[in-house]
């Protein structure tokens, strides 16, 4: 009974795998977790999705900073719901990363150790209530500009997470804009607060799109793999063009004397970005780098005993459930009645 050739002879060789992968990407098909993929593609995705997830989690901090001081109950409810969404988005993204064979714990360890990054924007402080609005309008606005194309990313789980996130995030930007509008139409002090926040967040928001195309380390390969769909500069330009009329409607100015409409290009020209500041913040020299990571680390460490307790409890329960009860002779695997409303029986579709 050895007529079948050894399995290895039938399976495709690495070059065939590579061409199947290339063909799938070229045909706009999605790559799914169990498909073969080049190691570098996997590593790029892990790096990018982890960084994205970390950004959601660290990004909770600057806004949560204002939850206890929100100036109206309506604003307070909105802000809690928004920061909660960010935790949720982090969780969706960690799940997507886990389909690539890394664990969330591993990724969190790397975040805490400083070996994986998060978006530099969250290393700036939220000094006034208006900063909550500026983050919603500008930071979330920039994030959405970046994220919408990711809904078509070649990696299925990442694309699906992004669809969910983009759908939920649509309220984030609007609430920020509405918040700034209320300030801009409010008292003199409120108006000044709004303008000050926009002045401080505008340039860091433009930096969120990453270094210019000619200095972007990962761009070309990511575009070829259809992880990325548009260049950093293209997305940045798109964002500026969107923001200029929105700022006018707010009655606020953008802090760039070189910002003007270019008839010929049909787009806005804008001033030079201070890439030195960008690289300093990236290197860890931003106003809040240390604070953000220590808070994250502290929450994780102080929560360790809680996570351990839950694991220990689950282990005890498993042991109790599989222990012979004496009441059912011969049965050692009988399950006690469920205390909860978990679905009973086999899930029939």
């Amino acid at each position, binding site marked *: 009974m050895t007529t079948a050739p050894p399995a290895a002879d039938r399976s495709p060789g690495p070059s065939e795998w590579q061409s199947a992968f290339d063909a799938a990407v070229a045909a706009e098909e999605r790559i799914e977790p169990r498909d073969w993929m080049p190691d570098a593609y996997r590593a790029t995705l892990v790096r990018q999705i982890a960084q994205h997830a970390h950004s959601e989690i660290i990004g909770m901090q600057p806004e949560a900073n204002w939850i206890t001081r929100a100036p109206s109950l309506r604003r307070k409810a909105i802000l809690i719901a928004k920061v909660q969404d960010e935790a949720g988005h982090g969780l969706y993204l960690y799940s997507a990363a886990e389909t690539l064979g890394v*664990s969330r714990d591993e990724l969190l360890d790397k975040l805490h150790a400083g070996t994986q990054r998060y978006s530099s924007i969250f290393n700036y402080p939220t000094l006034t209530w208006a900063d909550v609005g500026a983050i919603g309008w500008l930071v979330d606005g920039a994030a959405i500009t970046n994220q919408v194309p990711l809904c078509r990313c070649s990696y299925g789980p990442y694309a699906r997470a992004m669809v969910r996130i983009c759908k939920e995030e649509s309220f984030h930007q609007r609430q920020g804009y509405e918040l700034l509008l209320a300030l801009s139409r409010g008292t003199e002090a409120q108006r000044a607060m709004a303008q000050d926040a926009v002045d401080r967040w505008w340039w860091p928001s433009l930096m969120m799109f990453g270094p210019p195309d000619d200095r972007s380390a990962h761009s070309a390969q990511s575009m070829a793999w259809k992880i990325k769909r548009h260049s950093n500069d293209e997305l940045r330009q798109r964002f500026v063009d969107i923001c200029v009329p929105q700022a006018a409607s707010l009655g606020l100015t953008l802090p760039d004397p070189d910002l003007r409409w270019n008839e010929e290009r049909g787009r806005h020209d804008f001033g030079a970005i201070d890439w030195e500041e960008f690289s300093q913040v990236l290197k860890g020299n931003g106003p809040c780098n240390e604070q953000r990571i220590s808070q994250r680390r502290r929450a994780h460490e102080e929560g360790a005993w809680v996570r*351990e307790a*839950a*694991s220990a409890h*689950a282990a005890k329960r498993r042991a109790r459930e599989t222990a012979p009860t004496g009441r059912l002779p011969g049965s050692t695997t009988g399950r006690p009645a469920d205390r909860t409303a*978990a*679905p009973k029986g086999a899930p029939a*579709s």
Partner: protein
Amino acid sequence: MTTHWPLWEVFVRSRRGLSHTHAGSLHAPDAEMALRNARDLYTRRGEGVSLWVVPAAAVTASSPDEKDPFFEPAGDKAYRHPTFYAIPDGVKHL
């Protein structure tokens, strides 16, 4: 002591009459907490009326390498589809 909470796959029934659909995954120490976490994470905006959580380790999946033997044989059996059959014009309810 392990602090690693296992991974669970979450299925949501968005409304009665539809089947549960895979929504994503999450970590939880046990099934009860997984169900509660799933409620908070995947139905915050009223997306569901029923939830299943399944330990990710309990899922057996077909291998992409076996895609051809698994799924190609079904590709040439057109007679399983109603459009395979020619019916004279004017015959109704068929």
